[in-house]
């Protein structure tokens, strides 16, 4: 918030949110403190309760909704239909946002959620192009929010079981993808080998930039080819596309990275704050300024450009 963010996503320190990493997130008391700080800083607190409640343990997620409402969250970000129903019927005045994990990638799916649960904003999946985002923003019955920096999901979020296939833990059920608990690195003569579960995800020669073994960002073999079959370990940096995104009618820009360090968060937020100021002054956007903070030390505009498919 000090760096200029207008709203911050927070999660409770359990599997109710999709950044369920060790040592991260908030107890209810800490989240209440955060909400107070936010109000004083004229910023908003969004509470992410965006994993899919486990059958039989739905109370954990419902209690998270209750707590978030009680401490005055400006919006809850949800994905599960059952939980959306609970929140919308129990707290009709609470602003609800639709998480990218709900996989609403078209006007019709968005309309379903707006009609059923009165969601006020949808976070769009990262597999859409700018043209598609513009078309959706124009027609959708609610605000739209798009990712502009950070981790890039090349599969549709919320419907991906790659992580649970390899490790037994998934972003949908447990709030983690390619979890650190199942990561191993070891050096073989200067080559760094990264593994996830029982699978080698990548090898990095001495001196070459390394990357976290996110499953879909690994190097594999198929049809006598070896390489990044799904995606390279790059991060999204859509700063050059800010003018196009503003024109497309998007309401909010989302910076991914609740699991990143203070240094990272502060740097990235300032960078985009400055970029927006440049945009307001009709000056050209910077490009590649944040390369050092990106996965594999390189960046991409992801699916926003049509050629990505």
């Amino acid at each position, binding site marked *: 918030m000090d760096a200029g963010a207008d709203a911050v996503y927070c999660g409770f320190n359990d599997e109710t949110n999709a950044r369920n990493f060790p040592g991260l997130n908030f107890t209810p008391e800490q989240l209440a403190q955060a909400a107070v700080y936010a109000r004083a800083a004229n910023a908003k607190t969004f509470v992410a309760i965006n994993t899919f409640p486990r*059958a039989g343990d739905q109370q954990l997620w419902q209690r998270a909704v209750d707590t978030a409402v009680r401490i005055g969250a400006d919006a809850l970000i949800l994905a599960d239909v059952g939980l959306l129903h609970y929140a919308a019927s129990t707290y009709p005045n609470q602003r609800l946002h639709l998480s990218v994990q709900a996989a609403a990638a078209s006007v019709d*799916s968005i309309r379903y959620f707006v009609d059923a649960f009165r969601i006020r904003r949808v976070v769009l999946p990262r597999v859409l192009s700018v043209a598609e985002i513009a078309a959706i923003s124009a027609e959708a019955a609610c605000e739209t929010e798009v990712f502009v920096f950070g981790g890039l999901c090349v599969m549709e979020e919320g419907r991906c079981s790659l992580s649970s296939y390899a490790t037994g833990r998934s972003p949908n059920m447990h709030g983690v993808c390619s979890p650190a608990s199942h990561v191993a690195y070891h050096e073989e003569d200067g080559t760094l080998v990264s593994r996830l579960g029982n699978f080698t995800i990548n090898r990095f020669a001495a001196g070459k930039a390394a990357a976290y073994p996110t499953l879909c960002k690994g190097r594999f073999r198929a049809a006598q080819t070896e390489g990044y079959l799904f995606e390279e370990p790059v991060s999204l940096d859509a700063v050059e596309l800010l003018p196009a995104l503003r024109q497309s009618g998007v309401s909010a820009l989302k910076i991914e990275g609740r699991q990143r360090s203070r240094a990272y968060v502060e740097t990235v937020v300032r960078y985009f704050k400055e970029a927006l100021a440049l945009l307001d002054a009709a000056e050209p956007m910077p490009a590649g300024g944040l390369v050092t903070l990106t996965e594999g030390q390189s960046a991409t505009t992801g699916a926003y450009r049509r050629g990505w498919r």
Partner: protein
Amino acid sequence: MKLTLGPVLFNWPAAIWRDFYFRMADEAPVDTVVVGEIVCSKRAPFVAPEMPAVIERLRNAGKEVLLGSLILVTLERERRATAELAAIDGLGVEANDMSCLSGLNGRPHAIGPFLQVYNAATAFYFAGRGATRICLPPELPAASIATIALALPNVMTEVFAFGRVPLAISARCYHARLAGLSKDNCRFVCQEDADGLDVETLDGEPFLAINGVQTLSHGCTNLLGDLAELAAMGVGAVRLSPQSCDMVAVARAFRDVLDGRLEVGDGLETLARVVAPARFLNGFLHGRPGVEWIDPVRPPQPTAGAGDRGCGRPSAR
């Protein structure tokens, strides 16, 4: 328990696709068949002309026919096709994307394994708006399946029980990407791989399979040995996902085990022969990594712990 034949996920040439369904209609002991191109809308025009004959043949053979909707809807023409499907009268629809639910408007329908039904509340919500059967996401563990099936006795709960299991869907075509093409000019290279394209790790370990915009497991889900447990939970049907192997033999093995005519061990041997050289997996059901195979006949040895730790003492997990 009923047997459902899932939609063909791969890009089979239209004549092969048609003949496959004719044979399944005539010979396979399945109760419900889901037809339709659900992975990639670019493929739909090729099977569309064969659909009426296939549907008729299946219905004449006493099979219930459902039309599957596209998993990921993003393009305008995909929106239109999905809306048209949802409006069809006289044939059941299986919704694989929320956009399809939007068009169904409360009419009775089925829910496919690509909608996120992870708990009873969500299943209940969908049932209240017309869902009469729900095929659950393949990554659900037995405990969740049982809870949902128990909570909704009037909805047919279905579990994905055979075939390469869908793990992810994207707007990017990985078949095209591998061939140096893009989805727009793909030349339908996916048609070369009847069961998808095998993906291995750099160590040569079989890992995944690519089917256009869809990523699947390399191994073949096989819950033949878990059928009794599923039945006890209240699961109403299991889904067999078509591969290029002899699916009639697969369906018969499942039917015979369910009816008590075939021992699980013998059934597994039959399936192993039918799908050779594929490896089986059933990890998801057992709350383990999906890639694992917990042999129902010979229980596994206790494992040392998750992941391969490079150094240090084994941690007490």
